[in-house]
């Protein structure tokens, strides 16, 4: 009769293997064509390998073969959720380089549109993030209901829904419609209600609290070392916003606060963004009151813009963080060097540090909380 071996298999008898899970480029949680290879030990992620470049279209090189004005469209296509903010940055860079002063009215139009665009971008974030956390599309639809109002408004002004191409060095392409003020007030009123709806769905939701509080905490020092900017940096508690730190355009004329978090965890990142939407509403309301009449384009501009020899770095506070444009001019009608500092790219570089050691489901919401736009990461 055979004897039965009653020994319990110890750790050495059982061989376990980490598996590599390929998340993306076609995966609902990667917000585009981002790919990350997760090394997974059970449910815990032991390594993250981000792979980017699926959406590289040469958005930095192509403008070097374009007239200064032609390159505006390429900036719509970098951060395609915050087109006005990126255009604003590029247009100001060209203005700095060529010494053009934009008209007063166009400055106000730009600021209003850029702030509204910040709201749409954050609405997109809240919607996408809520699906990452697992709400079956409800917060997403609420966010998009209001986003649609702003998109329609943008369409009325620019004729485009996505690639606006509306700002120009020295002003804007054409004047806004006559009913601009009323329409804008109407939209803003709806947005305010929408923000409180979103707060009700997300901010005080116990499951969201249980999932997001304390997850992927980041200290201010770490954030600065990783080059993190925007809401992620402010969520760590640092009051740093380029609109206040080095006021560009006419931002020094408005009253607004910089919302900050305490822990730099996922929850703070969401809260900071929702608060930022409210601050943007404040800025737009003030700008609407003060917007003057007048020309929308600076006088005496040449048909072909030529920039004197020199270089310029212009940065603005985009919805995702610092969006910068570096231009080198040699006196020609084209930039000699054109480079974009993308906030998403720098923020994404901290992904590994934030997610190793967390659960697979947490890595998904950590990625969601960075709020990447792949067009900006890959350019």
């Amino acid at each position, binding site marked *: 009769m055979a004897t039965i071996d009653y020994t319990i298999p110890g750790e050495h008898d059982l061989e376990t293997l980490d598996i590599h899970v390929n998340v993306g480029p076609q995966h609902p949680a990667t917000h585009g064509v981002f790919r990350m290879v997760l090394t997974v030990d059970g449910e815990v992620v032991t390594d993250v390998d981000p792979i980017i470049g699926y959406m590289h279209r040469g958005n930095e090189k192509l403008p070097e073969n374009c007239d200064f004005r032609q390159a505006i469209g390429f900036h719509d296509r970098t951060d395609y959720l915050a087109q006005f903010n990126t255009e604003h940055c590029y247009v100001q860079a060209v203005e700095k380089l060529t010494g053009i002063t934009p008209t007063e009215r166009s400055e106000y139009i730009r600021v209003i549109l850029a702030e509204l665009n910040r709201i749409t971008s954050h609405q997109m974030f809240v919607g996408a993030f809520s699906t990452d956390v697992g709400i079956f599309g409800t917060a997403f639809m609420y966010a998009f209901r209001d986003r649609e109002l702003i998109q329609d408004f943008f369409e009325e002004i620019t004729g485009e829904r996505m690639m606006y191409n509306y700002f120009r060095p020295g002003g804007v392409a054409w004047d806004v419609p006559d009913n601009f003020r009323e329409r804008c007030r109407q939209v803003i009123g709806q947005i305010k209600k929408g923000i409180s709806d979103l707060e009700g769905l997300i901010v005080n939701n116990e499951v969201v609290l249980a999932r997001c*509080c304390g997850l992927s905490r980041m200290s201010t020092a770490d954030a600065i070392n990783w080059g993190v900017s925007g809401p992620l940096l402010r969520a760590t508690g640092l009051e740093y916003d380029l609109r206040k730190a080095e006021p560009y355009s006419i931002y020094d004329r408005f009253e607004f606060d910089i919302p900050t978090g305490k822990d730099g965890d996922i929850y703070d990142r969401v809260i900071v963004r929702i608060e930022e939407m409210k601050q943007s509403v404040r800025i737009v309301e003030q700008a609407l009151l003060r917007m003057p009449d007048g020309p929308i384009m600076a006088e005496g501009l040449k048909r072909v813009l030529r920039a004197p020899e020199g270089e310029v770095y212009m940065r603005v506070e985009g919805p995702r963080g610092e969006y910068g444009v570096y231009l080198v001019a040699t006196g020609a009608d084209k930039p000699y060097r054109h480079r974009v500092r993308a906030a998403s790219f720098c923020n994404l570089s901290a992904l590994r540090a934030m997610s190793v050691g967390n659960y697979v489901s947490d890595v998904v919401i950590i990625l969601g909380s960075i709020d990447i736009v792949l067009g900006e990461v890959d350019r």
Partner: protein
Amino acid sequence: MTFLLADNVWLDALLRMAIVGMLVPVGVILLTWVERKVIGRLQQRLGPMRVGPYGLLQGVADTIKLLTKEDVRPDSADRPTFELAVFVIVVPVFMAAVAVPFTSDIFVRNMALGLFYFLAVSSLGIVGFVMAGWGSDNKYALLGGVRAGAQLISYEIPLILSAVAIAMLGQSLSLYTLVELQDDTPFIAYQPLAFVIFVIAGLAELYRQPFDIPVAESEVVGGPAVEYSGIRWSMFQMGEFVSLVLISALASLIFLGGWIWPFSADNATWLQVVLMAVKTSAFILFFMWMRATVPRLRIDQLMALCWQILLPFTFLQIIINGLVLVYEWPDWTLTILSGAAAIAMGTLIYRVARRSGVLYQTSGATQRVGSVL
């Protein structure tokens, strides 16, 4: 009391099973439409509107699409496991449907151990999920299958134990008898704690939000079902929706007095049908409402909720029942004790969820302090 469909007992049983087998898919088609409409309304959309009036035929169109779709099987899949898995999921669900009486007349078999049979058979489906996860040779499916196994096995226990609490009160495992006992007071009045636990565990058994971890769209993209297409995929859907109906029907039978409460035991058949339909739909709509509003828990939170909160409280419910039954305390003590325990459980879950940020500590490297809800 029961009417026979045919004189021969075997023929009668076969006919009844055939009716269940045919009614259930039709019900599923309708239910998918209802779910899409309800969730659409909750999300300020219209839901399906194009196929038929108010999109009523959307389910039919989807069925035809699924039936005619190519049945794709991954090359590297474990063929028998992959192909059998869907049957292992769907067949137990149909088998469980046999035991559920919908009114005093309409049922397939009135079993003396109906409750026991239902719970035993419906837990077989777990095997199917693990098989699908393993047999697909896909890492998402594997993760989902393992999650499904862990989750469904864990939540079987509070589900079954809360049903045990009811069986203790009724001194019976026959669903028919249990319903007849509730002619003036439904069991929910005596067992609020067991009811809450049953609904939570039922949500987890149906893997719907906030417990849709095995099929999490944004993480494992459908989990065990990720490699299935066409008719095989639709069998996953069918299993899900039939279980939804069955769990809802079971909850209304053992907690809400089935076809009797709030009327008398000998009410007309149409009234019985209406009562059951209203109660069952209330549960189904509740599950759909949850789906549209609640985010997903993490797997460790899910486990903690089950083993650290639900399970001790189900034992508490059973102990309360035992004490009351043995010492023959009056009925209202059950209501008070169970209700107090239900409130205590709710408060506990709420407080732990609120301060979870303090307990959950990870900073880059793995630094995990137990599992924390």
